[in-house]
């Protein structure tokens, strides 16, 4: 681990050598090894494509591996603020790592752009902003379609973990506003060998639609169990299931499923009216030009969006202070909170003093599985 870290640090140092006396310093902590490396590596790939200057100022980027370990994430964050004197911290992609990093960021009064939907207690996220969409924003898009389809009752089948619970909470709140009722809620774990019993109970409640909250290939098994029990209503999936693994494992059974997704990965299919279409396409083209066709993914998208945000806030902050100072860091935060509506590849953000999640309800897109492929609904 240490050698990898050193290697990366050296590589970055060599890269940065050309830009001696770099002006703006960005510290990025990503899981390049460990269980979440599948998320961290693509994000790092996009970082390699970042421009070398922002608003005419040279940029120095330091990427450190946190190995999906919260302790390492905190260590990296501390190194960023004490040794490297960074102007902004980014990462991690892994939620459990990003959460404790927020503490360091707040203490050092440095903005943290988290690449994961880190849920923090009220008042603790003063310096933390999230690049991914919140579940509530995604639930908004989903409920929009449910309303259009006349869905009145929903059965919930979700992971018995933080992801499942936060979806249930956010979805129920949004649904009640729209006159939709959650009539039954059942839980399962990713490693379960069978969800027949849960599916039985849900199908017996006979809701108009079923909401399955699971991720990747784990989302297929509950879906198939519900279909197997003869459920004929509509089945909805969340954005964690919006990957091709759903079709790979689920096959014919997931045909006709409705899946909510961020706009970045389905750039070309977005309706022209979607505000993110242009940005998403340029992200996808840039990334796939460098890493091959079909290599697009949401995590590289977060890194892409982070640079878009930087390009907007740095000029604002430069008017107030010089990089490397405490005033500049504070100015960056003020800029984050006052930059207003900004279109990024993953949607439309509008961070304010009270809302550090930022995404506006126009963000989510509903997809339908048709012939084993995505179709925008």
């Amino acid at each position: 681990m240490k050698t990898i870290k050193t290697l990366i640090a050296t590589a970055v140092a060599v890269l940065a050598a050309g830009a001696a006396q770099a002006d703006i310093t960005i510290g990025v902590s990503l899981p390049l090894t460990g269980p979440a490396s599948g998320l961290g590596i693509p994000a790092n790939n996009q970082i390699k494509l970042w421009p070398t200057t922002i608003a005419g100022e040279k940029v120095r980027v330091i990427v450190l591996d946190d190995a999906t370990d919260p302790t390492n994430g905190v260590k990296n964050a501390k190194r960023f603020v004490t040794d490297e004197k960074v102007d902004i911290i980014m990462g991690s992609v892994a939620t459990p790592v990003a959460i404790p990093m927020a503490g360091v960021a707040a203490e050092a009064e440095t903005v943290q752009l988290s690449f994961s939907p880190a849920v923090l207690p009220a008042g603790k996220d003063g310096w933390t902003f999230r690049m991914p969409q919140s579940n509530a924003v995604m639930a908004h898009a989903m409920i929009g379609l449910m309303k259009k389809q006349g869905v009145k009752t929903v059965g919930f089948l979700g992971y018995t973990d933080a992801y499942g619970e936060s979806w249930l909470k956010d979805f129920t709140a949004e649904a009640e506003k729209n006159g939709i009722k959650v009539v039954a809620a059942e839980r399962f774990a990713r490693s379960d060998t069978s969800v027949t019993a849960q599916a039985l109970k849900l199908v017996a409640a006979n809701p108009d639609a079923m909401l399955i909250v699971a991720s990747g290939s784990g989302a297929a098994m509950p879906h198939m169990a519900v279909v197997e029990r003869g459920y004929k209503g509509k089945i909805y999936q969340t954005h964690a299931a919006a990957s091709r693994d759903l079709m790979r494992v689920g096959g014919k059974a997931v045909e006709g499923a409705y899946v909510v997704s961020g706009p970045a990965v389905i750039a070309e299919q977005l309706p022209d009216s979607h505000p993110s279409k242009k940005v998403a396409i340029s992200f996808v083209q840039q990334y796939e030009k460098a890493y091959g066709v079909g290599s697009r993914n949401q995590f590289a998208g977060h890194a892409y969006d982070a640079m878009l945000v930087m390009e907007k806030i740095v000029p604002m902050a430069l008017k107030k202070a010089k990089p490397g100072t405490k005033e500049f860091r504070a100015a960056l935060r003020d800029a984050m909170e006052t930059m207003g509506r900004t279109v990024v590849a993953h949607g439309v953000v509008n961070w304010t003093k009270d809302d550090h999640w930022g995404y506006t309800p126009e963000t989510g897109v509903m997809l339908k599985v048709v012939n084993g492929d995505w179709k925008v609904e």
Partner: protein
Amino acid sequence: MDISIVGILMLDGMTNGAIYALLGLATVLVFAVTRVIFIPQGEFVAYGALTLAIFQTGQIPGTVWLLLLMAVLASLLDVRQTWLHTHNAPKALKAGMVTLLVPAVMSALSIWAAPRQFPLLVQALLTVGVVTSFGPLVYRLAYQSLADASSLVLLIVSVGVHFAMTGLGLLFFGAEGFRNPSFWDERFSLGAVTLTGQNLIIGGVSLALIGLLWQFFEHTLYGKALRATAVNRLGARLMGISSHTAGQSTFAMAALIGALSGLLIGPTTTVFYDSGFLIGLKGFVAAVIGGLASYPAAAIGALFVGLVESFGSFWASSFKEVIVFTMILPILLWRSMSGGHSEEH
């Protein structure tokens, strides 16, 4: 809740219970012969299901390379050990070759067969061969030199082996899960209950394996030798039964049972690299119900675990695992109260 729901839940519980029964039996078997509480039993399940899944994509599973690596290590150990004992070079080399032979043949066969996309059954056989070969090697590398250590030390080694195997699983198979094609797609309707071909295969194979194990232990010399080792290691050694061979063949059987269980559940659920642990743990609960000693009690315990799990998921799905694993407490209490406990070893 009406009769059809009860029927469906019973079927679901029994199907899972049959798998737990197999794993429970393997756990009892391994513990009886070697005193190892074999936590990584479930890993063989995941390895089995996922190795087949990778064969299905026409690639060479990472497990094949791991098998080769472990075989080479084990064979070097054997060469060294025989050399130290006998100082006879041909004999030492022969010992090494014997250890290397089966895994090397299995690996070569897999590497040759993988891109040829043979029918499902052939690939399944190959998978069983590869995963079964892991058993003796795991014993050779992790446990053999500690065979006389206390149960606690062996348990700690098991935890280590479990983490190593899960980590390697992530490396070989990736973080996403796979679902294997069904061996038999037929469906039979019995009122509201639909019996799938896969259900029947699971039930049938489990029963057959249990029957075979019983035959093996009751009616073959080899099985009796294993039983003798289980009863008294020293006594068995004095009678000329090698406890190392007994350990290795026990682990081979445990791996075989694990691989078969993996093939059985592969088509009914999505298997991840870390799915095996919980499945194995439920088999372990079943084995504990059998006091880690009785095969029939473990099998009945496994069906019980399966049914509790199924009905538990129906009534209170958020507390399902809690229900299953809390069940072990009153059972342990009852077992320790009801006495009849003999101090072993």
